């Protein structure tokens, strides 16, 4: 058998392209796409809410401060805040300077930026 006919045989063999059976693969991909769509929708919703909260905070800081103070008083958040700070003594001095609205705005900004990063 000469070289050319060997290559012809090889070409013919290669041309019979191998195809892998589905065996539920398409369904798995469909489920993953569905799941990723749900996650993206939720992340988008959270981002929107966080931005809305930020707009509210910066649009009317005084009103938000009053709201937070009322909320803190009613839920006794002050104790939780102090407890959380006591767990991180090194941070407590610097964080103690922050007011509730500043801290809340910081947390909301962080959440917004994080969820935008996840979306991207």
């Amino acid at each position, binding site marked *: 058998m000469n070289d050319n006919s060997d290559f012809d045989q090889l070409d013919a*063999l*290669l041309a019979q*392209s191998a195809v*892998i059976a589905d065996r539920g*693969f398409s369904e798995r*991909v*469909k489920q*993953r*796409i569905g799941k990723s*769509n749900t996650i993206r929708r939720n992340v988008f919703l959270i981002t929107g809410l966080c931005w809305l909260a930020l707009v509210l905070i910066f649009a009317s800081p005084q009103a938000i401060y009053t709201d937070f103070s009322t909320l803190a008083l009613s839920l006794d958040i002050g104790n939780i805040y102090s407890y959380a700070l006591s767990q991180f003594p090194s941070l407590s001095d610097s964080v103690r300077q922050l007011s509730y609205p500043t801290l809340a705005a910081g947390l909301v900004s962080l959440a917004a930026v994080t969820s935008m990063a996840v979306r991207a």
Partner: protein
Amino acid sequence: MTSESALILRAVARHDNDAFSALVRMHQGKIRAFLVRLCKSYDLADDIAQETFLTAFRKLQSFKGKGSFSGWLFRIAHNCFLQHIRKTKRRIEITEQFGTQQELQTKQYDSLSTEQMDLEQALTQLNPDETATITLCHSYGYSHQEVSDILDMPLGSVKSNISRGKVKLKKILTKPIELEKAS
């Protein structure tokens, strides 16, 4: 308009999951077979194939219809494969596997003759570039230029990878026949 074009339009315009699933069913066999040849492992190939279709779904808007949809999918599949190698530094492991013939679980294929099984085994001994160019050009019928575009590889490299790979394949596949003749 072909059914494939209609499905692509539906998937792009309405972000229709069902239309995209139909496209997955159409193309998964070839994409997975291509990735099995590159990865030399079914499980890894399946993971990368899933990643390929998820990426394709996310980037569907960027498919402008230049070239075939399957060519676009092969391009994403190849990029996902390269990304995986970069991430896990598996290139060294795969390179080490060139010399050692791996037993492929050929039962995963739709139907495979003895010669095709031998071919699949022989392909495990080529490097990824040779495997990718030969598979796209000879098994799936893309032109050298199309393979060059899909793999983002110079045309000359495509041609040299194909001819080098075919010489290797011919050697590997004729070895058992020579041994039979000798005995």
